[in-house]
Structures are given as C-alpha cells and as structure tokens.
C-alpha cells in the first residue's frame, strides 16, 4: 500500500510550516514489560492532564498485555543531550581498557 497518495497534476499541495504546540500537552509513555525489567519508551501522546495521559496510554499502547506498569512523563520536563555533542558525552572509545575484550587471557585459563 502506498500511503503516499500520488499527487494530482495541477492540484495545490499543502506545505506545512512549523507551529506552536497543540492545545493538549505532550506526554512520553514508558512501559515495564514485566517485573524485573526497566520501563522502556513506547511512544508519546497528547492529553489534557497526567491522569488522562495515563488512561490514554493504556488505550493507545497496551492493548495486548504489553506490560505490568506504565509511566507517563510530561515531554516538556525531559532534558536531552544534543546528538552533535555525542563525542563529549560518549567518548569512551578512547579508553579501550574499560572494555573486557581489551585484555588477553590465554585460552588455557578458560572462560573468564
């Protein structure tokens, strides 16, 4: 199925500019699949308030027993690193001695 409906010759297409947020705030949804595992990001949704966001998260992201617990977090509260700053945050490649594979252990020693 092509969800990109073909363009009709001569028909004006909507160019979409950037606009302010919708009326309802945005929330990020995290689901814990089962006890013992972390909550993992499942997606986002709009809802008027935290409780409504939790109910909407249940309907939108857990229709098939996907987990045992849901977190909703206001998207505006998330502080994120800039991907362009990745080297400053994740520069550990310069420090190979931090990885187990850096060390040569003779085979005779066995699994270590």
């Amino acid at each position, binding site marked *: *199925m*092509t*969800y*990109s*409906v*073909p*363009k*009709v010759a001569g*028909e*004006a*297409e*909507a*160019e*979409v500019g*950037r*606009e*302010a*947020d*919708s*009326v*309802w*705030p*945005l929330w990020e949804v995290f689901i814990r699949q089962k006890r013992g595992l972390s909550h993992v990001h499942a*997606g*986002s*949704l*709009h*809802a*008027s*308030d*935290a409780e*409504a966001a939790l109910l909407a998260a249940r*309907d*939108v*992201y857990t*229709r*098939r027993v996907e987990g045992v617990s849901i977190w909703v977090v206001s998207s505006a509260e998330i502080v*994120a690193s*800039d*991907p*362009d700053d990745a*080297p400053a945050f994740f520069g550990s490649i310069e420090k190979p001695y931090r990885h187990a594979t850096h060390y040569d252990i003779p085979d005779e020693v066995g699994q270590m």
Partner: protein
Amino acid sequence: MDTGEGKFQALLEAEEKIEPTDWMPEGYRQTLIRQIAQHAHSEIIGMQPEGNWISRAPTLRRKAILMAKVQDEAGHGLYLYSAAETLGVTRDQLMNLLHTGRQKYSSIFNYPTLSWADMGAIGWLVDGAAITNQVMLKRCSYGPYARAMVKICLEESFHQRQGYEIMLALCRGTEEQKAMAQDALNRWWWPSLMMFGPHDSDSTHSEQSTEWKIKRVSNDDLRQQFVDMTVPQADYLGLVIPDPDLAWNEDRQHYDFGPIDWDEFWAVVKGHGPMNQERIEHKRRAWDEGAWVREAAAAFGERERNRGAA
C-alpha cells in the same frame, strides 16, 4: 564532525536512522510529513468502513474482534500522528488539513462496505496489502516512522488473519454465503491492487523517496509480491480472482495479471469515489461534535496545573 547535508547523506549511506533533532533537507521533511500524515489519516478514516458493521456483526465473537480491530486502527493513527509531530507539525494542523481536503488518505477507504463479507475481504486483502507495504516501511530511514511501523506490523497480522477466517467461514457455508464472499472479492480485488499506487514508470515522486530511503521497494514490486502471496490463498478458499488475465508465469516465477483501471484510480484520488464525501463529512462531524469534550478536558488540565503551582 560533518554537519548539515554531508552528515545527513552519511547517515543514509551508513543505513543509520535519521532522528527528529538531526538536520534534514526541507524536501525530506515535507515528504515525510505528507506521507506519515496521509498514513495516519488512512488509519483514522479506515475506521469508518468497518465501524459500519460493528452493530451488525453475525456473532458476539465477531463483534468483539471487529471492535478490537477498529480500536487498533485508532491506535495506529495515533502512533503515526505522534511520528509526524516530531517533524514540527501539530496535531491540530494535521486535523485541519484532513478536514479541508488538503491532505488525503488512502483511496481504498472511499469504497463502501456493502455486506458482512466485506469485513473478511478488507482484513484479508486491504490489510494484506497494507502489511506488504508496512513491512517495507519498517526499514525506512526516518526513525520515528520506522519505529511506529514495527508496532503496527505486529498488530496488523491479527487483522489479516481474522479477515481470512471470515472468508473461510463464508466459503465453507451455504451457497449464498460463498457467493457473498465471491462478490466481496470481486469488488475489493482491483482497488486493493490500486493501493500500491501508479506503475513505477508513472510514479513521479518515487525516485526521490527511494534515494532518501523512505521507500525501499517499488510500487510494482510490492504489488507483485501481494499478488503472488494472495492468489494461492484465494485458491484455497475456492474463490475466483476477477481477472481473466491472471496466470502463473513459469519464466518469471510470478503471476501475470491484467491491466489496472487507472482512470478509476485517479477519479477516486481526485475525490470522485463512491464514499469520498461521506467519509470526510463524517470525520468533520465527529470532530465538531467532540469540541466540547476537548475544551472541557483542556480547561480541567489547565486548572490542575494551576492548582499544582499555587
């Protein structure tokens, strides 16, 4: 590190995903907004032809299944709107573009659902065609779109299987029931093939989408994949695909099939299908009648936030 265009190209070449905060060409952004929004609109409008049969489902089991399926379509629409919003558009903007006809949805939903057998044919054929396309889209270069596809594909499999099961039940039933299944196949077969879009030779914006790795397989290849998969399934049902030219081609190791009526396809895209007007009117009415709910919820949310601040 390289920035802008160079970095974007490097990510594409490395088969890495593009994420919302990355620099991207404006054309890439517009193409994705258009495609993801149309995909989302398709899921949302797609609730109507099936919603039409919920109250008339033949058994309680079928009714529960159909409700679950329609609820899934709503969910799929919501995942996709979220993905579109990461490109800097708002939900309200997208709703407005749909309601004013400036953004389209898949033409398949502009055909009416005349009998219960249509619920079978839609699940089997329309969702089957959708899966063929969406499996490809899991590999698309834009991260949020690809991620939405993973979840959607998992859920679509149920849609297709329940549809085929409906067809199976009808084909194993009375003569009349089998005739109903055949009639549904007759009406949905060609529109399902049209879902894959114009031939590659006539598809104007496929090339750029392919370069950007949004589209990974051509319209004609996907259509062929769908035909090859579906013909044996129709045989098993004992139904006849309404195409006198349909035949196995030993050399190509694919089925050959007859010409598609592109005049009909373009007429429906341009708004002249049997249900175009009714679908969008229904959507607008639901939106307008729900306005008070949105406003009340927004007012409640506002009050809650102010209470927290006080």
